[in-house]
């Protein structure tokens, strides 16, 4: 990160942007005007010099550029010499002390510029370090939560398999079937977790690396539903698409992950026989996708927290399956990275509606 921005900083130091030059010119002009007012009131020259040094300091603060600072220092000295030393309106100076005054003024200005810019650099570096530390913290939290929660399914898988190995002959058909089922369920849980983790590793420096392409929303929904845990569930899953084709700019794999998480959540937290509707429509410049269920819903107090990482609510899940509180936080991260929003509202008479948006895509067709 630091290496990436350094060349840019260097360039900014050498070649100032035109906005920076404008700021520099304005500050110099203001300094000259104020100096002139001081002159009218017969203030001492020291006051006028202070105004110019202050101007230089302000220039380096606003432009963050060495070039502008140094330019401002030299220009201040020349302007001072031109306007405020005898003879006025020339670059000559008669009084004996002037070369000394001007040298001091130049040195003070340049040191001021250097210190100011170093200070700005330091602050920026600290901010970068803080962001890095925050990401590190996030990763550490993630790792801790995962390592802890991985133990349970792994214990179940290895223990059940060991049981099968050691006591195969003593177990009846039904018991063996149950053991195999437990091993299967826990490994599926691990598989889903790994899919989410793979998506999370794509978050770098607080930003997500998106591979954007123009996708058909219908195809993306179809793909997501193929990967949800609907084989073993007794829910009615409906898809509600508009008649016209809906195209959106997205990283298809990540948006599929969002839909899988939302639909799997709906399956997990609603009783058998509930209806889950996946719908899509167009609104302004966005494709609006929603996953609606008619389950018990989420209490208003908890709704504000569902997108936080490691938030698992106080749900007692029917099958006592553990939840890491990663899924919805990841959904929010992915949707935010696309420049969309994700919200949770209540369904009437009961249930949840998760709605998220992704920017529309365009295509020119050539037959």
């Amino acid at each position: 990160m630091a290496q990436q921005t350094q060349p840019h900083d260097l360039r900014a130091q050498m070649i100032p942007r035109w906005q920076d030059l404008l700021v520099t010119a304005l500050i110099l002009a203001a300094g000259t005007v104020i100096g002139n007012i001081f002159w009218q009131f017969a203030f001492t020259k020291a006051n006028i010099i202070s105004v110019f040094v202050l101007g230089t300091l302000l220039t380096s603060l606003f432009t963050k550029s060495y070039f502008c600072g140094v330019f401002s220092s030299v220009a201040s000295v020349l302007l001072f010499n031109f306007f405020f030393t005898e003879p006025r309106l020339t670059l000559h100076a008669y009084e004996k002390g002037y070369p000394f005054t001007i040298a001091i003024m130049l040195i003070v200005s340049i040191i001021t510029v250097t210190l100011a810019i170093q200070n700005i650099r330091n602050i920026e570096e600290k901010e970068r370090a803080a962001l890095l530390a925050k990401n590190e913290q996030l990763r550490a939290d993630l790792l801790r939560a995962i390592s802890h929660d991985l133990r349970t399914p792994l214990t179940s898988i290895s223990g059940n398999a060991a049981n099968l190995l050691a006591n195969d002959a003593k177990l009846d058909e039904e018991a063996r079937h149950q053991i195999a089922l437990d091993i299967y369920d826990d490994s599926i849980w691990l598989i889903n977790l790994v899919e989410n983790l793979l998506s999370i590793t794509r978050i770098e420096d607080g930003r997500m690396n998106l591979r954007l392409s123009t996708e058909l929303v219908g195809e993306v929904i179809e793909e997501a539903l193929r990967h949800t845990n609907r084989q073993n569930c007794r829910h009615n899953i409906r898809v509600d698409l508009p008649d016209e084709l809906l195209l959106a700019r997205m990283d298809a794999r990540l948006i599929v992950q969002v839909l899988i998480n939302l639909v799997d959540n709906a399956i997990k937290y609603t009783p058998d026989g509930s209806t889950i509707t996946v719908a899509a429509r167009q609104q302004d410049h966005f494709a609006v996708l929603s996953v609606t269920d008619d389950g018990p819903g989420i209490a208003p107090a908890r709704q504000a927290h569902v997108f936080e990482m490691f938030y698992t609510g106080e749900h007692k899940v029917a099958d006592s399956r553990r939840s890491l509180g990663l899924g919805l936080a990841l959904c929010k991260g992915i949707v935010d990275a696309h420049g969309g929003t994700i919200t949770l509202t209540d369904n009437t008479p009961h249930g949840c509606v998760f709605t998220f948006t992704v920017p529309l895509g365009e295509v020119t067709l050539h037959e």
Partner: protein
Amino acid sequence: MNKPLILVVEDDAPIRNLMTTTLKTHDYRYLVADCGEAALREAATSNPDIMLLDLGLPDLDGVEVIRRVRSWSDMPIIVISARSEDADKIEALDSGADDYLTKPFSVEELLARLRVTQRRLAAMHTSGSPVFTNGQLTIDFAAGCAFLDGKELHLTPIEYKLLCLMAHNCGKVLTHTYITQKVWGTSWENDVASLRVFMATLRKKLESAPGSPQYIQTHIGVGYRMMKIE
């Protein structure tokens, strides 16, 4: 149907066992190879019907194995990869693989892919005929028209071209790049987006239940495949 001979190429012993156990319990005949060189040897000497190929082999890159086999044989190759990156699958498919499975895969998925490939094998023997039939779909290449359930489909030239391309490669996953190259001659970002739109309009005319497509399967980020219907 006579059960085909499957060559399993996988260096990881537990996964190899999983696959051979699955094949055994479903009465397939099989051979195993644990590296690329052994796979090429077995493929040349035993003439298997289908190859299941792991991409991450200790000696050769899986894609290299595909290229070498393709230099002398059309045997269907199903690639198995732990890499979830689409680029790897696309490279394998463009090198001549017919289908792919991503680890972790389920036993049912493996068996389903084998069934699809077997149907494709059976269909390959009848290829070259001027009329293509798949389920309710019939294409008369000579007359340049397609029928669904006996009724003529009203297709635009591009839709017809797409349908023919899919039919000629029935059962095989075709990558976006391959299809756009064949239809437009280029493969820009916009071509792939156009392809999605034309494929969607084609499917609207072809599929009775758009939610669960019967003929054309989407592989997000990879491509499309026409399913062989029995």
